[in-house]
């Protein structure tokens, strides 16, 4: 496991990606290395309200001076995320990272990987896509959103897919861009049309992940799902973030996850 650190970070850039989502770039003095699927626990300011750090997937890490620049993509949904959207540049924050496990990035034989992201589930998937592109591992990328306006980083997505000549599939619930309907349906259609995958890597709303697991199961390949459970500590000690696994136990998703093969989860994990 890559060593966890509690990094002092400085907010160096914030860029709007959609009406509700923005990209955050954090500069750290020291370098950390992380893999797609891993996340960090970010403080949202001083004071005791909000009290807890917030969990965000890492969407990329680049060298920056002697240290590194850590990138996240965040959707404003409440207290913490709206505070993050308003903090002035150069604000000092703490980031506990890298945390959790990672997606399996290898493909098998001639089968490609299916990368599937719904809404703000994109960050770890995009990180995976750019990593796969760099390694030349073939994949198709499916990204979905409620509407065209909420599709994030389309350019970067396409660029990554193009490197490996994969297919880039866009889907919106309201059909305002790409294929109409859920992104998992778009995946199902291609599978029905005979496309074969070795594995799916997915992140998004729970219903989407449940649907992805169904589709993958039906087509006989594994789906690795990046889960989002409410977290207090992010480091395995509070046992608040658990998910029910196949043997009926509750596993801390911050430590044994956030990525789980669908087959390792209990039937009713998403209920």
């Amino acid at each position, binding site marked *: 496991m890559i*060593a*966890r650190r*509690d990094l002092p970070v400085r907010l160096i850039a914030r860029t709007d990606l959609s009406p509700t989502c923005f990209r955050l770039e954090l500069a750290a003095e020291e370098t950390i290395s992380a893999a797609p699927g891993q996340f960090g626990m970010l*403080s949202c300011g001083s004071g*005791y*309200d*909000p*009290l*807890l*750090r917030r969990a965000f997937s890492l969407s990329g890490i680049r060298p920056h001076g002697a240290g590194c620049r850590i990138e996240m993509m965040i959707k404003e949904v409440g207290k913490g995320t709206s505070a993050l959207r308003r903090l002035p540049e150069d604000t000092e924050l*703490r980031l*506990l990272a890298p945390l959790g496990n990672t997606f399996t990035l290898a493909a098998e034989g001639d089968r490609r990987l299916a990368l599937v992201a719904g809404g703000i589930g994109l960050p770890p998937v995009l990180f995976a896509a750019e990593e796969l592109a760099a390694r030349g591992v073939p994949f198709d990328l499916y990204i979905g959103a409620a509407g065209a306006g909420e599709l994030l980083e389309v350019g970067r997505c396409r660029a990554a897919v193009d490197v490996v000549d994969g297919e880039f599939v866009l889907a919106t619930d309201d059909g305002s861009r790409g294929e109409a309907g859920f992104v998992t349906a778009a995946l199902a259609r291609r599978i029905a049309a005979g496309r074969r995958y070795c594995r799916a890597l997915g992140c998004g709303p729970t219903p989407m992940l449940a649907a992805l697991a169904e589709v993958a199961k039906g087509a006989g390949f594994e789906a690795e799902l990046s889960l989002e*459970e*409410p*977290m*207090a*500590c*992010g*480091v*395995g*000690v*509070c*046992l*608040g*973030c*658990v*998910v*029910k696994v196949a043997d*009926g*136990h*509750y596993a801390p998703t911050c430590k044994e996850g956030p990525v789980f093969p669908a087959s390792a989860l209990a039937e009713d994990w998403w209920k």
Partner: protein
Amino acid sequence: MSVSLASRVGDLHLANPVMAASGTFGYGLDLDEFCPPERLGAIVTKGLSPKPRVGNPTPRIVETAAGMINAIGLQNIGVEAFCAEVLPRLRPRGVTVAVNVFGETMDAYLEVIGRCEREEGIAAYELNVSCPNVTAGGMEFGHDPELLRDLTARCRASTSRRLWVKLSPNAPDLIGAARAAVDGGADALTLINTIRAMAIDAERRAPVLATRCGGLSGPAIKPVALRMVWEVHRALPTVPLVGIGGVETGRDAIEFLLAGASAVQIGTAIFRDPSAPLRVLAEIETFCAGHGVAAVSELVGALR
């Protein structure tokens, strides 16, 4: 100015007055890279039961204003796994270990203690009595002084190690519970455990937590915890107390010492900052140095 951090909880001598609280620090080594357990006065394990426990369904936690509510359901690896796998790694590190014990029957408490008695390297048992007694109609052990005295006495009889009883702020009669625990043979009292609370999701018109209610912790409860420590200290001035509830800073810790606690435990603060116990310790030292306090022990119960 050099400050003596040495502390005592009854006859238990500690390198310093800061402990990691039960349920917020795993079994002692989970946050090793952020907070080496041997650098703390003591660590208190997650509550242990005779057999492993799966705990409650989800959601289990929810954040509130300056606090959080949890209903973990005492998920734990069981006393056997702790003794076989964890303790052997803590012992050589010289960690002062307090084992947090709970059960749904008196026998369950005794079973956990019994198993631990076969092991070296345990400094104290901390009884979590905020647990429904299934054989007594689900009344919490900590809520009925009779029951609590009984439980404490039976645990007392089963070990010569130090016995701490962790009081529940939800008990009808805090002082009565404190007395009962002491009468039963407790060497010290830990207070407070979480305050029973509820969060509601207006969208779903349902409680947020699967168990509906849970326990409130964090800075929000500090004023209540301080009051309770002070009240128990006034009522039972000779009984060693371990203060807990919303301690986030060295100053918070010092407030608990002044109120009458011999040491403090850090719980929820660890979730915000995995090295919180060490930070609190450093802040205590700085405060003492800056205020001409030669030994933290001077502060215990020094409230005017």
